[in-house]
């Protein structure tokens, strides 16, 4: 009978434990990361009594955590990716929404500015029209600055996110190490057969939390602890020790934060580029691939507007007869030295032509005797040494680098950001309404005594942006054709390779050994040798003079016809033959940086003059050209208008934001699925627990009944004896 009692007591104890585990499950139904537990039972060893084995009850083998490592890992990696894309999307959508408001973007203010220019062209002497031009220009610069400040606000937001997230990562690493310690201290049964279930869940949950910040790998150790690795294998938690991440400054740009890994006893090393996944990965991805390109893009649009207006404005003449000068002030390209530089070099950069600018940043480096410039967007490397750097200044992709003083030491690097400050640094240079250069500096006139029928057009000033075709001839002469106006600027001009050539306010030179007939192009101030050239001729970058025009532009000259088909140009004309020229009606005639067309039939003795424009307050020629800058393809080597470049930037941000949104949606669905798969195994179902509760309760009651029966049996025996 004692056996019966003993047997049923094992049942009571076992089901008590089963019920308390059910209660534990029910209590933790909403605990994140909790895995349901099951009491595993088996029959106790039977007793050999009277020639047969008699069962002796039930025993609890273990309380098992229902758990699948694979599913947990899947949840973790989905969490990392989802968190990354969600972070990228929420940051990108801020730029997206900023550009989405049609009234807040650059397009409407640009439109108003160019509209004001048209109105000025309609009424060039009106002070009111000039005032409107200046006000609209002010709106343009203010809008660029506003947008730049909002982007800068996002950049600061990125910094503070990096700071808080690094703190969170460090705290989580510390907690994981702490749980590792707790697990290490817990009794684990023989051969680590029984690990503390709830501590494992807590640690998994902490690792899962950590994976929201960055992708990670885990390696379980035999002693029950878990090692955590991030980035490309940097150990964040090893056993009971946690390493630290720290926020450090970019070596080039102190307001740009990066993440460093501090190994035990060592100094911090930048691992920003190695961190992927998680919200840290998302923040870094946003900064590198969306925010920085957007700032550079916006800067390039600002520089594009400013430079193309400036060049045209310089060609004009103000109400008071002064040469136009710059209309906008622009920011020079930034050159940021690495904090680790040991040399003394002061490197400076200037804008050469906006048409050649890209939206990338560049790294200037010295390695031994070699000087290179690497474009970060595509890794293209330019050998600057071959171009004469650091002795001479060199022009690459629209900007010019030179060493202003000192020298670069071996290993020194500089970051060059040609357009980053473009939007922020834009301002209006013209303050007086009289200084808006609506007029052209020259006027043409037909002599009133002319007897022929030829007329002369109002003439135009050649722009340094005109497309030039330079043909080199053996023996040392060049022909220069202005393809924009159709005028021949020089024919058979004596030229020694290496010397400067100056046309339309541009100066450049040919180098190497050009073959006879080699052709070189200058378009939008970008110089290129013709791909079909033989020989080894090169062409230098072109620099534009302060006036952007030929220095002799306003020299008074007279076109004198000696016969209806022959003319000479009398006056201060430089460089090119000017006598005995053949006249064709409608042909462009260009000297001293201006171009004019004569049509009709002149008579011998007829003269036409080109002279400075004095008192021409009603002249709107330059205002008209300024208004049409809007349609000039002044960016991307003459392929894109400034408005088009802004549109591309909007589309680019939109596309990236859309990508992040789609990726976020996809990863959220995947996360839900892997979460569901994990929960299907490990999650608590209350109905199931209710059923179990009833089941265990009944078993417990039955065991208790057996004890009652044992007692009754014992009583019957006692009463039989009594």
């Amino acid at each position, binding site marked *: 009978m004692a056996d019966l009692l003993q047997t049923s007591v094992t049942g009571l104890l076992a089901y008590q434990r089963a019920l308390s585990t059910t209660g534990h499950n029910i209590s933790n139904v909403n605990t994140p990361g909790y895995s349901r537990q099951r009491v595993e039972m088996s029959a106790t060893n039977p007793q050999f009594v009277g020639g047969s084995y008699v069962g002796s009850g039930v025993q609890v083998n273990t309380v098992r955590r229902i758990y699948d490592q694979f599913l947990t890992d899947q949840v973790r990696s989905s969490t990392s990716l989802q968190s990354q894309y969600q972070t990228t999307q929420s940051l990108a959508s801020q730029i997206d929404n900023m550009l989405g408001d049609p009234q807040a973007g650059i397009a*409407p203010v640009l439109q108003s500015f*160019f509209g004001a220019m048209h109105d000025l062209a309609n009424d060039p002497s009106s002070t009111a029209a000039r005032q409107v031009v200046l006000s609209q220009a002010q709106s343009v610069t203010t809008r660029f600055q506003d947008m730049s400040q909002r982007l800068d606000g996002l950049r600061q937001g990125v910094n503070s996110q990096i700071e808080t997230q690094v703190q969170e990562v460090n705290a989580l690493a510390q907690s994981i190490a702490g749980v590792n310690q707790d697990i290490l201290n817990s009794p684990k049964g023989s051969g680590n057969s029984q690990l503390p279930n709830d501590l494992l869940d807590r640690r998994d949950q902490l690792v899962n939390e950590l994976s929201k910040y960055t992708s990670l790998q885990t390696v379980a150790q035999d002693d029950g602890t878990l090692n955590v690795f991030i980035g490309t294998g940097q150990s964040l938690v090893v056993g009971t020790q946690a390493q630290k991440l720290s926020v450090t400054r970019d070596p080039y740009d102190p307001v740009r934060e990066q993440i460093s890994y501090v190994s035990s006893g060592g100094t911090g090393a930048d691992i920003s580029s190695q961190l992927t996944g998680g919200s840290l990965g998302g923040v870094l991805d946003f900064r590198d691939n969306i925010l920085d390109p957007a700032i550079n893009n916006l800067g390039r649009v600002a520089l594009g507007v400013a430079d193309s207006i400036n060049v045209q404005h310089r060609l004009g003449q103000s109400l008071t007869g002064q040469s136009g000068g710059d209309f906008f002030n622009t920011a020079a390209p930034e050159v940021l030295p690495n904090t680790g530089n040991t040399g003394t070099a002061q490197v400076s950069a200037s804008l050469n032509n906006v048409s050649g600018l890209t939206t990338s940043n560049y790294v200037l480096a010295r390695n031994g005797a070699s000087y290179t410039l690497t474009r970060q967007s595509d890794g293209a490397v330019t050998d600057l040494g071959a171009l004469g750097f650091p002795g001479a200044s060199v022009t690459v992709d629209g900007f010019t680098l030179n060493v202003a003083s000192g020298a670069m030491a071996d290993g020194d690097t500089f970051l060059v950001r040609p357009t980053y400050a473009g939007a922020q640094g834009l301002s209006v240079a013209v303050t007086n309404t009289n200084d808006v250069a609506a007029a052209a500096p020259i006027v043409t006139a037909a002599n009133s005594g002319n007897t022929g029928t030829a007329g002369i057009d109002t003439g135009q000033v050649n722009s340094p942006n005109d497309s030039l075709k330079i043909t080199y001839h053996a023996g040392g002469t060049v022909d220069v054709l202005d393809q924009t106006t159709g005028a021949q600027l020089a024919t058979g001009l004596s030229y020694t390779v290496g010397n400067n050539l100056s046309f339309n306010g541009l100066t450049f030179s040919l180098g190497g050994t050009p073959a006879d007939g080699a052709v070189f192009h200058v378009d939008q101030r970008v110089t290129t040798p013709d791909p079909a050239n033989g020989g080894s001729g090169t062409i230098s970058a072109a620099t534009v003079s302060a006036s952007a025009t030929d220095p002799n532009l306003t020299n008074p000259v007279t076109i004198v016809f000696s016969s209806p088909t022959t003319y000479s140009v009398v006056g201060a004309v430089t460089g090119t033959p000017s006598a005995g020229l053949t006249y064709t009606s409608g042909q462009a005639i260009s000297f001293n940086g201006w171009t004019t067309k004569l049509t009709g039939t002149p008579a011998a003795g007829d003269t036409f003059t080109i002279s400075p424009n004095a008192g021409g307050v009603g002249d709107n020629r330059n205002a008209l050209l300024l208004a049409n800058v809007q349609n000039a393809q002044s960016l991307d080597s003459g392929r894109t208008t400034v408005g088009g470049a802004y549109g591309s930037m909007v*589309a680019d941000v939109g596309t990236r934001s859309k990508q992040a949104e789609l990726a976020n949606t996809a990863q959220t669905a995947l996360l839900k699925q892997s979460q569901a798969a994990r929960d299907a195994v490990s999650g608590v179902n209350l109905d199931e627990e209710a059923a179990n509760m009833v089941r265990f309760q009944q078993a417990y009651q039955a065991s208790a009944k057996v004890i009652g029966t044992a007692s009754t049996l014992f009583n019957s025996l006692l009463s039989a004896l009594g």
Partner: protein
Amino acid sequence: MRVSTSQLFSQGISSIMDQQSQAARSQMELSSGKRILSPSDDPSGMKTVLDLGKAIDLTTQYQRNADSAQARLSIEDSTLSSATDLLQRARELAVQGNNGSQTAESRKGIATEVRQLVDGMLSLANTKDAGGEYLFAGYKTQQQPFVDNGAGGYSYTGDQGQRTVQVGPSRQVATSDSGSGVFMNVPGSSQSVFGTLYKMATDLEANTPTPATIDDIDAAIKNISNVRSRVGARLNAIDDQRNLNDSNLLQYKQAKSSVEDVDVAKAVSDLQQHLTGLQAAQQSYVKIQGLSLFNYL
């Protein structure tokens, strides 16, 4: 498949949230009337919208420019018309003055009128436009172009500049004519219009009219009439361009609307669908959450 209780809960909530956000999106599209609310909704569509917006603004500006050009040319045209009338009157007087029946006295009377015509012509040539600029001064629009130097001498102080205005993407129209070609250098005549009239008055006063005066006046009338026909041609060109601009504007607006505007019928039906979905999600959530085995224990 096993479903955990918390999963059941979060699934229900997330489907309600999904339906809510989709309904909110449809509602936003409907209330703004726009399909593209931010560039990410349709990146290339957004670029098209920006391009078309620029084209619309620019074409509107061309129409403004055309208005301004037309106003300026209309003033020129009416001034030249008055000048022609004045010269016609001068021609009548010249014919009259050359008539042998006139006496020295009557010729003086005619001369008095001709003197007034000289002044009238000078004031026409010095006409200002609505903005106070001299119409026939070339670029020197703030300086009186025609000056009476006395004793029949007249000088032109303007230049030969001609102002043009952009009225279409590739069309510029001249909105002025230099006074030197209109009044000073008259083809077929050896003197300016003013000189011709002045000499006519002097001749009449001296009782020595010459028929050559009539030829000079005819040449002046012909010259001004040539200028007028050029002005008329420009006005026609402006009208042409204006019509073209109008039809471009309409096309741009239609194209922009087709890219960015919401399809109202579709958006309304989407909204209805999301609202129905939301209702179903809410109802099923309440039903499922109400069920628990514990209720029966």
